[in-house]
């Protein structure tokens, strides 16, 4: 029996007309989204494909997080068609680190290992191969040496990279990052954006990230989704224009 997501994916493929074209990992057609029947954003049209780096730019409170939450299935769309080209378990989500409760005593390694929880059954001891994978993704973000440190004792940039490692632990096809560059210094911003570009180029991952810094998004992204005052429009990023 096909899951709802699989059917969505097939539907999305048919809509694109040809099975040879790359499958959109996320497709929104005339979608309205918001809370309690009150739309925050209307008539959103967007498709994200593997290997794309898509930036979501807009001021604070413009609906960036609402759009992410709708794509992730945490909010139901108020109207329109939303389809996904892979199961939700293949979405690597990086929340804002400030949204996580520092009351929890969690090491960096424990945070990263959470990404594998979807694959490990309840009564099972945490498998060795998953531990190895956690080490590998920590290597990728350059923080293996901090794996035993308390997550909430790390700097803002280190926390973001640990959360990116957690999202990679999911073995994602698409990564969604909510304000990954807020509260980090300029050097860390560059290292994070370089890493995101690397993920799209080397692993063919789709990356969709948000920021209120339009200039930075324009410099980094292939495609830019602009949101402001309930309106949504698409722009080409400078990187794509240059290429």
């Amino acid at each position, binding site marked *: 029996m096909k899951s709802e997501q699989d059917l969505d994916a097939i539907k999305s493929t048919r809509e694109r007309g040809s099975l040879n074209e790359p499958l959109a990992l996320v497709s929104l057609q005339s979608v309205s989204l918001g809370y309690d029947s009150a739309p925050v954003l209307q008539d959103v049209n967007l498709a994200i494909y593997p290997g794309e780096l898509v930036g979501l730019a807009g001021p604070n409170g413009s609906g960036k997080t609402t759009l992410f*939450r709708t794509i*992730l*299935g*945490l909010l139901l769309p108020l109207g329109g068609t939303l389809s996904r080209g892979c199961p*939700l*378990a293949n*979405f690597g*989500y990086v*929340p804002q680190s400030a949204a*996580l*409760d520092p*009351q*929890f*005593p*969690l*090491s960096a390694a*424990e945070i990263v290992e*959470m*990404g594998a*929880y*979807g694959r*490990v059954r*309840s*009564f099972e001891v*945490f498998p060795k191969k998953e531990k190895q994978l956690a080490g590998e993704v920590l290597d990728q973000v350059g923080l293996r040496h901090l794996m*035993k*440190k*308390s997550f909430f*004792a790390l700097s803002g940039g280190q926390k973001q990279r640990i959360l990116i490692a*957690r999202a990679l632990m*999911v073995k994602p096809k698409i990564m969604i990052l909510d304000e990954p560059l807020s509260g980090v210094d300029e050097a860390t911003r560059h290292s994070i954006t370089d890493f995101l570009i690397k993920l799209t180029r080397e692993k063919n991952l789709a990356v969709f990230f948000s920021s209120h810094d339009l200039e930075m998004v324009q410099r980094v992204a292939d495609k830019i989704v602009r949101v402001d005052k309930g309106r949504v429009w698409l722009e080409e990023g400078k990187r794509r224009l240059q290429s």
Partner: protein
Amino acid sequence: MSAFFEILSPSYLLFPALLGTAIMGLVCPLIGSYLVLRRTVFLGLTLPQIAAAGVSFTFWLQQSGFLPEWGQGERSIGMVGSLVFTFLGMGLLGYLEQRGKGLAEGRLAAAYALAGGLTILFIVFNPAGQIEVLNLLKGEVIALSQGELRLLAVVFGAVLAAILAFHREFLLISFDRDLAFLLKGRQVIWDVLLYLLAGLIIAFGVILAGPLLIFGFLVLPALAARPLVSRMSSFLILSSVLGLVMAVFGFYSSVRLDLPLGPTDVTLGCCVIFLAYGLRRVTAKASAALLILVGLALLPSSCGSRTAAAPVPEAKAIHAEQLWLAKVKNGTDSSLLLPATNPLRSLAEMAGKISSDYRQSVMDLLRDSLKTELVQKGFRTSLPEETDARFPALSSDSSSAVRIAREGKLSGAVFVSEIWRWESESQKFVRVVADFKIVRIDDGAVLWERHVQRAVPTPSATNVGQASTDAVREIVRDLFAG
């Protein structure tokens, strides 16, 4: 040290109670850790109070004739009330949470106040007497029977197994609900299961140990462990270990110092929290180890300064074959008369129709038992009133006892006993403080003495009078057996 290891021996009379407390101390903090991390500590306070309201409600219903008598199963019917009220309370709080009206803390505070008020009202309504119900509500774990211990082990064992099996799900749903949804789907079941487990240990724990002790075990070890660890696995293990240390140390202090267990454990738990925050500056591992070591070091030394109690010696060993067994002195404010077994007699006594003078008292029972045992030890035991009918009960003050004995022209040695406290609030145990001495009359030398201060469990007693009889037997057995 021997005084501490004595309570760890399976042959120790209160061992089932200690084991029950230890099980609760081990398991409750595991659930409490999630309550603390989810910032729902108030739930750990409110649910036990709701359970207590359920206990007093069912007792009231039973005493009013709305529920059938369950023989000796007072706790069983209380357990039913505790379970029903706990889960109803959780359901109602969950429903209100879903509706999202008002503050969560406000709802919990109102529920706590309501449950506390209802608990007292149901006790006041209860025609069976408030003290009996209050004792059951206090959850005297000291009176834990073997059957109750088995039930406790099964329920808490199942809860422990569930926590171990589903700890990843509980962590995920508590820490990051969005990730939990992406990886596992919209699984409300983990929230429900966590609260179900909390409800189970609270409902069973409240009737067996009382709301205060259960709240203490749920929350205090987790609060103490939190500043000392930076890993979730360490947090759960340390909370549980601290809960166990708190349970054993609290139990030991309670028995040795004759203090109620709940308040003793809670006070101890708060001290551990202060200590933990003081140790924050030391490295986490070192401070956790230090905390446990301090607890273990204090355990035998703090209250165990008393030397091991010696039994009454053989007559030859102290060269005092002639022993005068004085009347037992009652140092309490109560008459310590045993209740009459015939209810019509009691009514007549209350109405002043007949005198209660000739009724047996605890002192009479104690003296009779002492005499039998002393004879078996080889003492030529006599009663001072056989020489002079006016001979009074002697106090445990040896100089005063010797003076009176000399005035009564007695020679040899005198056995004096004085009861300072004898409280049999329920038939499950009797709290006793008493002194016993053998004093040589010639020179006033104390040949043997024993201070008894303990709660004596009387699990097979069916009424308060029987409890006193059983307690006398147990104390005398203890005096002569060592």
